């Protein structure tokens, strides 16, 4: 029996209604992908208690999770497709490139150590051409920059001393690429009188799941679960600024690990804006914001939409006086984490990004707001608007308040 045979019964409720395929961003731009219905519940039905089937088309699934949110029967489609990915990787081997991409944390550590050189090198055309040839990373794909002064070097508090305590799962992106987002988050919490601790953590595992590295991903999930439970059991809330990390802890850990610990931990996971919204509902949010006169477009990442939390970023940002924010109602950006870097996936990525680029241009706002670093990467490449994280805006709104003595 195959090692990756797994227990998942929600597919039995699948009526083949097509809601997942109709809404699947990839299915809508390409016939090369079999679609979530076919490679999820139908494939599982065929394989259950029988031979394992490896379908190479599963490589085109980005694990955006839109299928899960579309399904009227609550079938965990993306759990099925992520295992189909794992099966494909196991049967077919994993490209060296995919191993590297899936290990965002290691890349981050190395790249940030040599940050100025990395950033410069990644902009040199011959180097990028060589990368496409040797590694299969598309030469035209822009990379996020890395910071030498990564967040780990900037802040490493292990315990919080205030009454409300937050443990911050920083994630690879805010640690190595955008420490300013992490700094901003700490500041925003400070303005609310909340101390932030940084627990021991490894990459959330999302890039691993997306590249079929299920075993490594589950190892990370287990490590993080153990590490963070130590905090939640002492009354900490776990807060994250990356919506993909948040989604992994809330949804994937529980459905992949299938342990009570993962379920217990999931109860305490909050997206940063969601957390601030709760503070606001409890009447304890510091709403002393300075006026920011700006008209901005909001781009909702797929992994935010899948959490079922409404639109907390807009709920909070709308509290800033003068701040006009409009949801652009755009579909998937097409970067999809590691997907958009790959040579052979790059054309799909650009095709997906077209819709997003059009709405950004049509709205013609001052800048774009999104929580996701990878969506930002695509926005940076396809639009000429600056992209900010909600925490960066909130920090500015707090800082600009004139000090009265």
């Amino acid at each position, binding site marked *: 029996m195959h090692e990756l045979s797994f227990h998942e019964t929600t597919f039995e409720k699948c009526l083949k209604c097509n809601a997942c395929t109709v809404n699947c961003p990839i299915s809508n731009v390409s016939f090369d992908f079999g679609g979530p219905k076919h490679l999820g519940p139908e494939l599982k039905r065929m394989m259950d208690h029988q031979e394992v089937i490896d379908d190479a088309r599963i490589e085109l699934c980005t694990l955006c999770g839109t299928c899960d949110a579309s399904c*009227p029967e609550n079938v965990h489609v993306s759990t099925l497709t992520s295992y189909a990915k794992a099966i494909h990787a196991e049967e077919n081997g994993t490209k060296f490139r995919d191993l590297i991409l899936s290990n965002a944390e290691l890349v981050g550590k190395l790249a940030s150590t040599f940050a100025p050189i990395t950033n410069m090198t990644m902009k040199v055309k011959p180097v990028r051409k060589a990368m496409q040839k040797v590694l299969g990373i598309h030469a035209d794909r822009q990379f996020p920059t890395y910071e030498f002064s990564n967040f780990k070097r900037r802040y490493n508090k292990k315990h919080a001393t205030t009454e409300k305590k937050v443990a911050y799962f920083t994630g690879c992106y805010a640690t190595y690429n955008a420490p300013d987002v992490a700094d901003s988050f700490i500041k925003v919490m400070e303005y609310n009188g909340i101390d932030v601790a940084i627990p021991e953590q490894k990459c959330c595992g999302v890039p691993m799941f997306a590249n079929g590295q299920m075993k490594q991903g589950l190892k990370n999930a287990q490590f993080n679960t153990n590490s963070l439970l130590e905090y939640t059991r002492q009354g900490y809330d776990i807060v994250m600024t990356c919506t993909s990390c948040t989604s992994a802890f809330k949804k994937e850990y529980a459905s992949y690990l299938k342990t009570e610990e993962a379920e217990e931990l999931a109860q305490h996971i909050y997206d940063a804006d969601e957390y601030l919204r709760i503070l606001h509902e409890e009447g304890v949010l510091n709403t002393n914001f300075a006026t920011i006169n700006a008209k901005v477009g909001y781009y909702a990442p797929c992994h935010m939409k*899948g959490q079922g939390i409404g639109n907390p970023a807009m709920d909070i940002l709308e509290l800033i006086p003068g701040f006009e924010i409009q949801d652009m109602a755009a579909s998937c950006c097409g970067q999809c984490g590691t997907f958009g870097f790959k040579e052979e996936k790059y054309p799909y990525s650009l095709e997906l990004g077209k819709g997003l680029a059009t709405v950004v241009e049509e709205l013609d706002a001052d800048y774009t707001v999104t929580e996701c670093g990878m969506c930002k990467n695509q926005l940076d490449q396809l639009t000429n608007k600056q992209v900010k994280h909600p925490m960066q805006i909130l920090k500015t709104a707090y800082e600009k308040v004139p000090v009265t003595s």
Partner: protein
Amino acid sequence: MYDVIVVGQGLTGLLSAIVARKQNKKVALVAKGTGKMLQSTGLMDLVPGSNKDFSQWMELYGLSNREKITVKDAINEFKRLTEKIGYEYVGDVDKLANVVTSSGHLKSTALYPKTITPIPEKGRIVIVGFNEIVDFQPEFLKGNLQKERPNLQIKTMSVSLGKDSQRTLTQLDAARVLDEKDNREQILRQIKEKMKTEFTDGVDLFIFPAALGVQQWEKVHSQFCSELKAMVTEAPGLPPNATAIRLHERLRKEAIKLGVRFYTDTEVNGFSKKGTINEITIKMNNRNAKLESQHLLICTGGILGGGLEQTAKGLKETTLQLSVNKEGAYVDLPDHVYPVGASLGTNVIHYGITGGIYSVVSSYLTNLQIERSDMRGLQRA
């Protein structure tokens, strides 16, 4: 705290959310899946599967003559909305149109998108299928249509989309192919080529699957009409039909742009009253959360939408866990809770299929009810 919470994102749910948001209310929409609209034809029928006219419809749904003007307002409001979102509906509830489905049967419908043309009594018709779309068989359609309209001269043809896939292609897939200009031209060339030899005496109407573009439907439709020198219609059939998807995608985007907060992939699993306030518990990925609202709209679509379940003990209401009668209507409805559309349990047809017009009208009427209730609240204050 929201002014209005809508449960469900089918036609009724999306319309209710949009109407409420336009009244400047703070609106949340809670939904488990995409709504049953994706399975529909996108046609707005009065009484699906029958030829009942407007006055019979009013009677069937228990609407009094007094309400006629309001009903007409609701329909005009819907037409204005569809025009605004770039997918205009035409037609008249007083004069039903006979449109063809992909099985070749005619059905009466009240409102339909501009890609649809009613079927005439006589004339020359060509039914065009796509080789790759197995859900639409021109010969099958012809056989049935000929029985209903013996005076039509009907011919069929099949052309290729020029795309292949290992997955079964649907009408929606074909529609996305037609969004691209080059593909349209390639397909039109094939049709014209066949016309040269087989259909030399001209054609009045071309019938296609419900696949004439998604984003670019207007371009597709007008290009086909002008190049084929005839009227063009879509014949909706097995889902997903582009006729329904266009409306669904646009209504959803409109609601999001207006600022409706979507709590997708959630389920209502608790309900209580705190004074006049409705408090629902929703199950998110990881935990339960509470949402409060002044008004709670149940747009869960009856049996078909999953709002009702048929059990051995009778009908079970799945959203608020309240008791319903044999028809699925709430027995003891709490204040400020409003079932809309099929959730009202009027059950005039079967399984909560109410027809698009009822969804349109019911969403509108519910909003008026809310407005009146708010006015009363203000007067008291």
